[in-house]
């Protein structure tokens, strides 16, 4: 019998006197779960429900292209907001690829969408669901709505792509509601982040560690997502097509959604986030992390053109590099000083094994 979630949990020498609901790590884990994580997963499922509706309405001629694009952008933003919160079922079942295909170095999205629709002009939901992850997610949806070679104003073109839009919308809705349900299950992530020990966490410290590690690694991921188009991995030569959501020009809006969500984990919905675990001796560190978030936010807010345009000139690239440096400071502060102040290990076996 496969035990993904062994139910019986024994604890050796449990001597945790005073380990009640008021224990700070337990309090923060529960508060972040209810105030930040669950609302974000709920918002994602809701945005995907609207995406599925929008695909139907657009294809029935009841919604404009602008409205359809707005629904896509909303779905992508709410997906991006989950990046710093991606622990549990999303990351463990390799589901992220089904939502977004990035990086797409070989333009697989365009090639596979066209190949699929050539071979399956009457694409069914079942065919999409068992097909390649490349065509199941938001990246393929964005391609259809934004690629300049696809004129959705032409009814024949719309007829070609609509079965795919509808199937992606449904696939995303099913996936996000399934993940949300798994969070809320009796022995799902919500329960595991509330009371300890359980089959996943020995104590609240482990749970909070998992939250911080997920967030820190997401901020590191944002650096890569900005660094790739900036050419940081390609001798400084900008690679605009390596950006997320480059077709819709939403790269920076998506990045901002992830940063906002990382900051919510830090602040908490009611001043009850990771920050509240720092005692007075670390108040200076807390202030510096506040300032680092503010700096990243301000730099993002000051960028008034899409990423692709900013990459095209020197001033834009300078501003983007400054944003990268700001993200890097945020990453280092949390990975180093914050983790240490909270007694949290980021870990080394995963990165530095043998």
């Amino acid at each position: 019998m496969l035990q993904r979630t062994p139910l019986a949990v024994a604890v050796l020498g449990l001597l945790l006197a005073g380990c009640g609901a008021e224990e700070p790590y337990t309090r923060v884990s529960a508060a972040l779960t209810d105030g930040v994580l669950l609302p974000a997963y709920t918002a994602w499922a809701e945005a995907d429900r609207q995406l599925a509706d929008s695909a139907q309405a657009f294809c029935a001629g009841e919604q404009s292209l602008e409205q359809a694009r707005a629904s896509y952008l909303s779905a992508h933003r709410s997906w991006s907001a989950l990046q710093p919160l991606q622990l549990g079922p999303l990351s463990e079942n390799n589901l992220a690829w089904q939502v977004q295909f990035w990086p797409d170095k070989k333009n697989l999205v365009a090639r596979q969408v066209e190949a699929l629709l050539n071979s399956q002009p009457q694409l069914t939901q079942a065919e999409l669901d068992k097909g390649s992850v490349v065509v199941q997610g938001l990246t393929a949806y964005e391609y259809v709505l934004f690629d300049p070679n696809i004129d959705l104003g032409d009814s024949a073109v719309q007829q070609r792509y609509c079965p795919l839009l509808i199937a992606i919308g449904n696939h995303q809705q099913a996936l996000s509601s399934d993940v949300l349900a798994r969070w809320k299950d009796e022995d799902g992530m919500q329960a595991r982040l509330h009371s300890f020990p359980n089959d996943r966490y020995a104590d609240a410290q482990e749970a909070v560690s998992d939250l911080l590690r997920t967030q820190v690694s997401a901020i590191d991921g944002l650096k890569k997502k900005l660094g790739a188009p900036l050419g940081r991995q390609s001798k400084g030569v900008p690679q605009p097509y390596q950006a997320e959501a480059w077709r819709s020009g939403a790269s920076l809006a998506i990045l901002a959604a992830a940063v906002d969500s990382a900051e919510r984990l830090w602040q908490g919905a009611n001043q009850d986030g990771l920050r509240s675990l720092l005692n007075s001796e670390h108040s200076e560190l807390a202030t510096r992390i506040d300032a680092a978030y503010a700096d990243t936010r301000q730099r993002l807010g000051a960028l008034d053109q899409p990423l692709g345009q900013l990459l095209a000139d020197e001033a834009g690239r300078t501003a983007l590099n400054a944003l990268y440096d700001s993200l890097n400071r945020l990453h280092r502060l949390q990975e180093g000083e914050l983790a240490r102040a909270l007694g949290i290990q980021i870990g080394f076996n995963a990165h530095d094994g043998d």
Partner: protein
Amino acid sequence: MQRRTFLALGGLLVAAGTVGGWTLVQRQATPLLLSARDDADGNHYAVGYYLDGREAFSTRIAERCHDVVPHPSLPLAMFVGRRPSRESYLIDTRDGTLLQTLASPAHRHFYGHGVFHQDGDWFYSTENDTTDPGRGVLGVYRLQGNNRLERVTEHPTHGVGPHQLLWLPDGETLAVANGGIRTEADSREMLNLDNMEPSLVIMDRDGTLISKEQLPEQMNSVRHMAVASDGTLVTGQQYEGDPEHAVPLVAIKRPGQPFQPFPLGEVQRRAMHQYTASVAIHSELRRLAITAPRGNRFYIWDLDSTELLLDAPLPDCAGVAASRDGFVVSAGVGRCRHYDCRGSRIVTEYLELPAGFWDNHLRLA
């Protein structure tokens, strides 16, 4: 037995241990967990903890270690330097005294693994011949005065970049995982990703090659393994090729059979992110356990039916070893776990050991 007699006998045993130079290793009711561990500042330690949480020792050492090799009869353990370290540490496991800092000879460095021969007189380690980077060497050392190892000779491991080595059940024949990767002195940079030569070698401890087998995928580095009491051998691989390639990350050689893939579920194979770390077998319960720190998962299978029994989240998991009732697992973050595998349902227990900073491997003595 009179209480007085009992105490005197106990005293004799202690005296034998401290004066005579040999002693019975006391088979503790509570086993001793041996591992390399760091502190929050990145300093390195050789540590021993009883599973009930008592610290036996924590000895600061200069370089990071990898595997630990308990002596078969003396209270000694070799903490083997991690690639490309040129030092290993012989520790008295009763109090942590550093008995010897063993230096590798010129143009050799340790790869992190070793074994003591069953008679206790010989120690073997995998080493790199840096004059021909990657040429695998089996370093042969003799135990002198119960507190010092001296290099006697060396043999080839019949492969490139050897990593873990273990005894087959006869205690005379060695299995060597030749990882296949060439690296130079003082470096961990991989020089031959286009031309890797991983292999599983079975050899006599006198250096004679008995067999050499390879998996089909050239970039699939055979690195760690475990051997059951019936000779069943399981290896864990680390694949250096495309992250999307479906390759056998676990392989098995059952007695008298060829070295071949161990069937993994697609969900598990993908979750491993092309990387397995420590491998352990529980011979009596016929269970196989593997840590996958890049996937942050810990797995247990039935060794015979290959059925998956446990697929658990375990961030930054590290070492695993068979205990009396199941497996003990450590991690770079969080608490060590014990998985009790006796019943029809595997039971998770959290050990009262210091949390986190546990390095790649652990041993129970």
